[in-house]
């Protein structure tokens, strides 16, 4: 017995816990890596939100009339504007350089102002200085108006959203039926060899940078459409061409994801159907497709989200300049197209342009985020079925 208990003592000592510092350090580092993603999301939401908030809450300075720039004449508390036609009314806040003034009266081309408004310091303003008026953009205005023209203070998001929806719908009309058909063909009809060749081939389509598609839309699709429908009908820049090419871009996304979903349906289910005397089509349509439906739905939603966010194709092919139109053959500017065009120019921070971009960006983010979350919910349900 003593011998045994000695042995056991040793065993017990060996089994005792040992500190493992390296393991702890590694684990902490890995956690930090994971947590960074939260930081990124936080960054996105914070930055977009902050600037968008500025857009809605801060006083925006706009030039009501370009011509006023050159013709400002300063007296003590009066400002003379040579050309009228301004929207400046009493109670408006205006700014010349860094000095803000409250307009008390308007007499023709001359304004009476209280200088040094909002504790800005009155300064000397020689002639030819830029005059700006202050205004706030209301959320209601943002979401209800259909004209977008920051130059003249029009901030109706629908001009942009409408174009986005148009290109997206056209894209979906192209991509969903074709993509799904391809998926069914590859998963149910094509031989393994053909499938293994065709699927990556189509995926090359997905790997081509979107700027190339933009080029394709402008130099191939638009001329093609114009040769079909006539040069007069279709503008050089138009949403139809952009939408179709977005559709082509998205085909492989839809077909590949749907094919994955179809492929994930266990062979056993197909065998069950064949074993009952079903034909190939009956098996594909009535057994495989319903079984994969949530995966396919998820693919569709991701495709929509992708179409919403697509930028370069519309930037190149859909045209510059927001326009509220339902004619796909006219040019129009989407949300993304607008962002990229405006930010591509020389953008001054703290301008209303800059801030408005973030408002658009936030809206875009929220839209795509919603779609993504929705598709993930569907996918999660889909996973549970076969586990």
């Amino acid at each position, binding site marked *: 017995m003593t011998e045994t208990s000695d042995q056991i003592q040793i065993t017990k000592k060996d089994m005792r816990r040992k500190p493992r510092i390296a393991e702890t350090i590694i684990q902490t580092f890995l956690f930090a890596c994971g947590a960074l993603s939260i930081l990124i999301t936080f960054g996105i939401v914070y930055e977009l939100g902050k600037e968008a908030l500025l857009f809605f809450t801060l006083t925006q300075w706009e030039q009501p009339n370009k011509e006023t720039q050159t013709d400002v004449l300063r007296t003590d508390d009066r400002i003379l504007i040579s050309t009228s036609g301004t929207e400046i009314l009493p109670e408006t806040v205006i700014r010349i350089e860094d000095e803000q003034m409250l307009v008390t009266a308007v007499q023709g081309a001359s304004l009476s102002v209280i200088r040094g408004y909002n504790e800005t310091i009155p300064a000397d303003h020689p002639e030819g200085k830029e005059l700006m008026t202050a205004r706030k953009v209301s959320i209601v205005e943002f979401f209800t108006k259909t004209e977008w023209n920051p130059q003249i203070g029009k901030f109706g998001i629908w001009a942009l959203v409408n174009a986005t929806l148009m290109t997206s719908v056209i894209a979906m009309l192209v991509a969903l039926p074709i993509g799904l058909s391809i998926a069914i063909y590859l998963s149910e009809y094509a*031989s*393994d060899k053909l499938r293994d060749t065709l699927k990556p081939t189509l995926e090359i389509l997905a790997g081509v940078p979107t700027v190339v598609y933009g080029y394709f839309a402008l130099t191939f699709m638009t001329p093609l459409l114009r040769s079909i429908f006539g040069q007069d009908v279709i503008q050089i820049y138009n949403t139809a061409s952009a939408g179709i090419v977005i559709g082509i871009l998205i085909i492989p996304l839809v077909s590949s994801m749907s094919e994955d979903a179809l492929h994930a349906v*266990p062979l*056993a*289910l*197909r*065998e*069950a*159907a*064949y*074993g*009952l*005397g*079903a*034909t190939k089509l*009956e098996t594909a349509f*009535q*057994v495989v497709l*319903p*079984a994969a439906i949530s995966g396919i739905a998820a693919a569709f939603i991701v495709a929509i989200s992708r179409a919403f966010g697509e930028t370069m194709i519309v930037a190149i092919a859909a045209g510059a300049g927001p326009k509220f139109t339902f004619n796909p053959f006219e040019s129009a500017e989407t949300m993304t197209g607008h962002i990229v065009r405006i930010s591509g120019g020389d953008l001054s921070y703290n301008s209303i342009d800059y801030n408005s971009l973030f408002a658009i960006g936030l809206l875009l983010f929220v839209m795509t985020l919603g779609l993504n979350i929705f598709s993930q919910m569907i996918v999660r349900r889909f996973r549970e*079925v076969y586990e």
Partner: protein
Amino acid sequence: MSTLTTHKQDVSMVARNLNIYYGDFQAVKDVNLEIKKNKITAIIGPSGCGKSTVLRSFNRMNELVPTARTEGEIIFEGIDIYAPEIDAVEVRSRIGMVFQKPNPFPKSIYENVAWGAKINGFKGDMNELVENSLRRAALWDEVKDKLDQSGLSLSGGQQQRLCIARAIAVKPDLILMDEPASALDPVATLKIEDLMRELSKNYTIIIVTHNMQQAGRASDYTAFFNMNPDRAGYLVEYDETAKLFTNPKEKLTEEYITGRFG
């Protein structure tokens, strides 16, 4: 029809000089077998000897494998099912199949049973058909209150019985089962075996099983397959189960069933 002349009353299916290839590889060699009507025939043998291959050739499921090629005749109810004018889809509606892993459709229990009959153009009272099939599969009592629940919500053993009900609903004459209980626990397994015994009053059943004990328990006839060194499977012995398990003719069979093989 000349084939009819050789058709015996108590025989459901005959395999004659059956050779099956996957590409160049011969998986099954020269099998001759007579399946007795309304009996349960078990196919046993070591892994890879071609049991599943033979079984799947019995309702042309093998054709779904692109490289598979079948030679010889399979005569079912007097007709060579591989004859050019015979439609594989039709064959499969006559010869049902139940698979290793329960594979109900992700549809309701009701639809699971009804679907096969529907696509095969069943015109009668569908509710009755579903109930009857479920009853035969000894599942009715357990599911009659939840016919609209998903087939996947059932337990493994119930799912397998649902698959059997589904196969029955198409009104086949012969049911092929490829290791129908190997994914189930012992209790569910015995239930399926009981069910097979019950079904064999009305159907001919062929079952492939890895489990010798199961073949013993659940079959009337047993076919023992083995494979050559070149991995081609062949029929070693075919006899009544009682005979084969107590007094096999072949030494190889004896070695296999007593566990002294390989």
